[in-house]
């Protein structure tokens, strides 16, 4: 039971980690929704094309990381508003996945292909665990993490010491985009096919994980697992209290909203 729970919570955990990294830099990455959708799609495309999941993931991460980095530089370059620009990416991701899907496969719907490799779900749990450890190590035990955390709290001090704080946002957004894309790709692999809209809403909920986890690495990881657990409880409850399945689609958002409100009320300041 715990086993399936862990596997199920991996995407949210990874996306939440990405959100945390961006939050530490002082600019929450609102584009995670789009990054996840892109990741879910691109992993399918590249894996089928190359026959290997590894190449599929690497190519996807490369592209989405670049996108995240470019977005941050674009904002610095033009002084655009970070939130609105990130929203644009969410919309663009939708358009791009649909368009490419139509161009390559003549359909906007579910993409299936027997060539799509499959893999054991446990692998992802190990991967997630390793990434959490890595994140913890880098953020709290390296100068890079120190500077990242400083850039989110006081860019003035960094400037005085001669460090450019905006560079850390560039990197943070690249990492956030990659983690979200990784999460999206994992969803596709678990399902065994690409389902448009399969990651809808998860990008936003990942942002909430940052607050539920009180902005700490282990907190976010734990929050993701607990959230997934409660979510599943809700779905199981369907057997006892008959809630139409359509309505149940709104449950994660509702849950995230309630938990977010509670976490804000509990915040001491």
């Amino acid at each position, binding site marked *: 039971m715990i086993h399936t729970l862990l596997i199920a919570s991996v995407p949210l955990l990874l996306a939440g980690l990405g959100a945390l990294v961006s939050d530490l830099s002082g600019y929450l990455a609102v584009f995670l929704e789009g990054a996840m959708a892109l990741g879910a799609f691109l992993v399918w495309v590249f894996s089928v094309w190359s026959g290997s999941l590894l190449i599929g993931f690497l190519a996807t991460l490369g592209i989405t990381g670049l996108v995240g980095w470019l977005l941050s530089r674009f904002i610095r370059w033009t002084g655009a508003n970070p939130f609105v620009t990130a929203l644009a990416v969410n919309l663009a991701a939708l358009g791009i996945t649909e368009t490419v899907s139509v161009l390559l496969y003549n359909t906007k719907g579910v993409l299936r292909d027997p060539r799509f490799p499959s893999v054991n779900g446990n692998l992802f749990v190990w991967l997630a665990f390793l990434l959490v450890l890595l994140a913890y190590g880098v953020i709290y035990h390296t100068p890079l993490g120190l500077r990242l955390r400083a850039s989110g709290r006081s860019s003035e001090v960094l400037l005085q*010491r001669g460090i450019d704080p905006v560079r850390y946002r560039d990197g943070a957004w690249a990492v956030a985009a990659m983690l979200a894309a990784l999460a999206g790709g994992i969803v596709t692999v678990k399902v065994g096919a690409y389902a448009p809209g399969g990651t809808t809403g998860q990008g936003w909920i990942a942002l909430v994980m940052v607050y539920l986890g009180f902005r700490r690495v282990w907190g976010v990881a734990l929050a993701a697992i607990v959230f997934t657990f409660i979510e599943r409880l809700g779905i199981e409850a369907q057997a006892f209290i008959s809630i139409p399945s359509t309505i149940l689609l709104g449950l994660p958002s509702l849950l995230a909203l309630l938990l977010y409100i509670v976490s804000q009320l509990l915040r001491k300041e």
Partner: protein
Amino acid sequence: MDILLRNVTKYFPTNGVQALSGAYFELRPGEIHALVGENGAGKSTLMHILAGHLEMTTGELLIDGLPQVFQSPRDAIHAGIGMVRQHPVLVPGFTCWEDALLGIPWPALLPLDRRLARQRFQELSDRWGFALDANARTEGLTISQRQKASIVTLLLHQVKCIILDEPTAVLTPVETERLFALLRKLRSDGKAIVLISHKLEETLSVADRLTVLRQGRTVATRLSTETNPEELTALMFGDAVDRHQLEKTESAEPVLPRSIMLPKTEPSPKPKEPLLQVEHLFVNQKDFAYLRDLSFSVLPGEVYGIAGVRDSGLETLELTVTGFIKPLRGSIRLQGIPLQGRGPLAFRNAGAAYVSADRLGKALALRLPIIDSLMVHAHRRFVKNRRFWPRFLDLKAIKYWAGELMSLCGIQGRLESPAEAFSGGQLQRLILAREFAEEAPLLVLAEPGWGLDASGRALLQERLSKYLKEGGTVLLFSTDVDELIRLSSRIMVLRDGQNVLELVVPEDQVQRRLVKPHISAAMVGTGTAKEEIREVLA
């Protein structure tokens, strides 16, 4: 490491201020060199240039004979020069050692030895007698601890020259002595120390050499053993011209004569009803200095100045009187109306206008059209229909009124332009004019000299004179003793949240000079036992 600054000028285009017009400064290793001068002389500006925070307009910087240009504080630290500000900025939420570590060249991904870093910080702190806990969070540090943490940071970065910007203004005498002992130790270690100060006696007790700046120029350099406070004062104020004066350049900015007297109403023989009365005020607000059993009153027609170092409760009192902070106990009455805890609007309605110290942040809406900032108080008077919602504004009248205000300040511009399109100096003038336009019985004025250029100061003098002639009353808050002496009829010194000294300002210039050190001394007197305060507030 020998440092030489030569022919330095600095002009700020945004408010048209010529801060430096020919400064000269020389620093040798193993000395404590003080930079003295009155407010606005350019001491801070010169050192900010040396530390890489500002760029000089013209001039040279030579280190060991080689010209250097600093484009950022980072370059200066690389060259071995670092500055400790009066209110050091540390990263909130970090521990001391984490903050100190920032900026030290270290490969980004190499694992930190947290224990080692913590140890190094603690060692340095202990070695110099700082009594700092490396693990303490930066938000919880007092000012003197922050200064010390900054010094440790600089030492960790291996600087050879440490600049301290008016550190003692916010320290108690005991803390000041400890700081000086530390500076002497650093000096014997071969470091060069620059101490910016306008307190002559204590500076003479610790410095080896002093350089005097006046109106942006270096007028003299003296050995501390070969001079005295009187000569230094004369040099600072220009009554004596030094024969060793270096690098004459034309001053670009005419300066107001120092002895402008405001018309002061004679203290009348029979006691008058106070306009503003503060009694037994206790304030204990997070992030602000506390106030303890504070009482004073302001009589109609006078200029009542309150002096204090920034952390003595000056800001707290300013915000409490004007209604932004709610006091724990005590009363504030304006024209008899009780105001404590009733908010800024009640304070204004009771008959007051307020020019805050933080003008550009709090007293303006930068991105909105300037007319929106100007009409913030007046708009309530220009309402067409009072009875029912929505209450329409008489925009034509408001525009006319605002236009008059603008021309009064000699500013040409469209009312629809956003506030940020105007220069800093223009905005300061507009804010002053706006508050004077309220014609309130009481004007609360905080740090009047801040941010004003020459024409702004002239406007302020003019409006203040007019206001007082027409029977206005001014409550003045300032950290600048000279300014207070110049403008006030009575001065109260605030220290550690209490009223420690109250005196009438003499008319005579010489007597004023004598009274000044008393005021300064009262401002940084002996520390108060913190336990007593906690008991009272509990």
